[in-house]
């Protein structure tokens, strides 16, 4: 049993348990912190897969940016009270949903299992990546050559998101009197 496998077991266990906690925790703050746990373990999983760049980004973007945003909003809205929304829904609804979810899991897992025997046909084998000078270099090679147009498009998306957020946040005065 090599250490990589051990690390995998550890990370994946944390990830699954953490995500369960995200869903089951009563206070949003606890959910948020469980989510941080999940993000970290995912980052580890990426690293195990050799995607070091993504692993780094995972920490930066998710844990650094998104989670801060979440926690900030939770504080802003004062959502620190435990909620009972899990118990509100009817048993039938939960049953059907769980059944569906398990069915979905079954399908997905079958699909995952079926990919066990796939032999990769791409050019970027581990050796090739090492030869090119590591994960980061090879990714930037692809990203700024083949995907440069998409990359630029994404910047527009982010710009749009910024504008949208600002617009949403600014509507305070106009909205307060209108709807309710």
């Amino acid at each position: 049993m090599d250490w990589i496998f051990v690390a995998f077991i550890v990370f994946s266990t944390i990830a699954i348990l953490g995500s369960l906690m995200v869903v089951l925790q009563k206070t949003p703050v606890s959910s948020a912190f469980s989510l941080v746990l999940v993000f970290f373990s995912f980052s580890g999983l990426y690293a195990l897969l050799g995607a070091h760049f993504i692993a780094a980004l995972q920490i930066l973007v998710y844990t650094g940016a998104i989670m801060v945003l979440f926690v900030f909003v939770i504080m802003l809205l004062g959502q620190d009270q435990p909620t009972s929304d899990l118990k509100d829904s009817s048993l039938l609804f939960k049953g059907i949903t769980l059944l569906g979810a398990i069915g979905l899991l079954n399908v997905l897992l079958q699909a995952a299992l079926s990919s066990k025997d796939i032999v990769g046909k791409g050019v970027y084998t581990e050796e090739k990546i090492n030869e090119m000078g590591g994960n980061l270099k090879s990714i930037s090679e692809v990203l700024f050559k083949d995907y440069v147009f998409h990359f630029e498009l994404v910047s527009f998306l982010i710009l749009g998101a910024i504008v949208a957020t600002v617009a949403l946040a600014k509507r305070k005065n106009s909205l307060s009197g209108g709807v309710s």
Partner: protein
Amino acid sequence: MSILLIVLFPLIGFLINGIRYIISTKKGTKISSQQSGMIATFAMVLSFLVSVYYYFQFNGQSNEVKLIDQNLFSWIKIGAFHLDFALRLDPLSLLFSLIITGVGSLIHLYSIGYMKEDASPAKYFSYLNLFCFMMLNLVLGSSMPHVFLGWEGVGLASYLLIGYWNLDVEKVMAGQKAFVMNRIGDLGFLIAMFVAYKYVGSLDLIEIQKSTMSPFVVTVFTGLVFFACTGKSAQIPLFTWLPDAMAGPTPVSALIHAATMVTSGVYLLNRISPLLIQAPQVLSVIAIVGVTTAFIAAIIACAQKDIKKILAYSTISQLGFMFLACGVGAFDAGVFHVMTHAFFKALMFLGAGSVIHALHEEQNIFKMGGLSKKLPITTITFVVGWAAILGIPPFSGFFSKDEIIIESLNSPYGNQVLFAMALLTALLTAFYMTRLLVLVFFSPSRMDKDVEEHVHESPLVMTFPLIVLAVLSLIGGFWHHSEGAHENSQMIMITSVAVAILSAGFSFYRYRKFDSEEQTNNFIENGLGINNFYNNFFGKGVTIVSKGLFRWIEAGIIQNGLKFCTWAVEFSGNVLKSFQVGSVQVYLMMMVLLGLSLMIWVLQGVMHGVLIYGK
């Protein structure tokens, strides 16, 4: 000179008066009766002169030459079907044109006086001209659709003139009745055209005459045409409109409902006479219908109180005579009677108009009497007409009527029954005409005092046509020479004259001192209940059927079916709406379930694909 002129002048008159009418209503000015009347009369006289010109053209010519075709323009041309708008003049149509334009001119002239007080004389005279135009189209048309144009056109003019005083709803309804009943007959005409086109391939009247159709088709065709004629010429079963049509102004009754339009059936039967000869069944039906109509109308006439109604039933009766003549194959006699009848019946109608005019719209003969002193010209001319219709020699009616009676016995299609009926009708005719004459002119006066004081003879413009028509009624009979007298014709002639005189004598004796209202049989007065029967059976029948169709099929099935459809759509919408609970979570759940099932369904195939790809 062209025969187009015959029809053109009335058209021009119609247009001039019509436009004058429209302009006058626009400007609100009043048009004098004289002006409009002179224009209209002038148009008719010109038309008459053209007809006379052609009469002299034809005179002395051989029969082959007596045919003028004038192709005006190509009317309908579609595929193999080609129809020209063409006029055709032959002796028959010339005779009718002469009657229409001649008698028409006189009646136009008479109308100037009669319609003096009318509010819109231009309209009236334009209608009269329109009628003459259409009637001339009817007799001069070379093809069946062209005749049909006139046929429907005169119906239209008749409708307009019957309902001329359209403030009175009764009169309007009478006009509508006439139009609709005519249209029932017209359906026969239409279908006859289709039959002719199917089996002859042409609608030209001469081509149809010359064609050789199978006996059955000939029977169908002639039967349909005859049906059309019963509508226009007020024969059984479509005769009830004519008495009602008396709602129109009296000159109109004289022109349309006595002299010209109602005789167009006789014209048409004459037109297709070569085919009628080939269809003996139809001939005998025509004869029976004719004589029955004549008889029944005569009976009804005996019980009428309205002077115009009596004349109307008398017209129906005389038309029956004409049909009888056609039915026994004596087409010439029928046409001859059309002519003499046009003279004397127009005369009598105009005379009646003169009386009505003098009495301020009084039409009940039991409120008249003793008018012979106050209306001398009217009386004298009316007596001439009376003598003519009775068939007293040498008045015109004698010649035509007796020829028909003789033919009804002697012709190969005639028989004793027809003869007896005809004779009986002649007897009745003499009775009721004498009744009318005596009650109006000779018996003691039964008028209201204030009416009596204002009675005066009509102006010259009205009496002049009376005089002319009286002269024509007197001498009209000599224009026709009947050939091939049978040995018994003398005998029949004497019999019929004797019968008429006896009957007239009885009638004279009975009514000469009448000073109260006669108690007539209501059943007979109301037209033997036939009119009521039609009203109840067809009039109400149509209403009931239409209401029933509306109620059961339209509202019951169609609309409710439609309602059901809309309901079904709304219902299914409501059912689907119940899935929209408004909770995001439920929507998500549904999405997952649906996505899952789709996934399973699709992945079945894709997984195979993946496996194959993997290998």
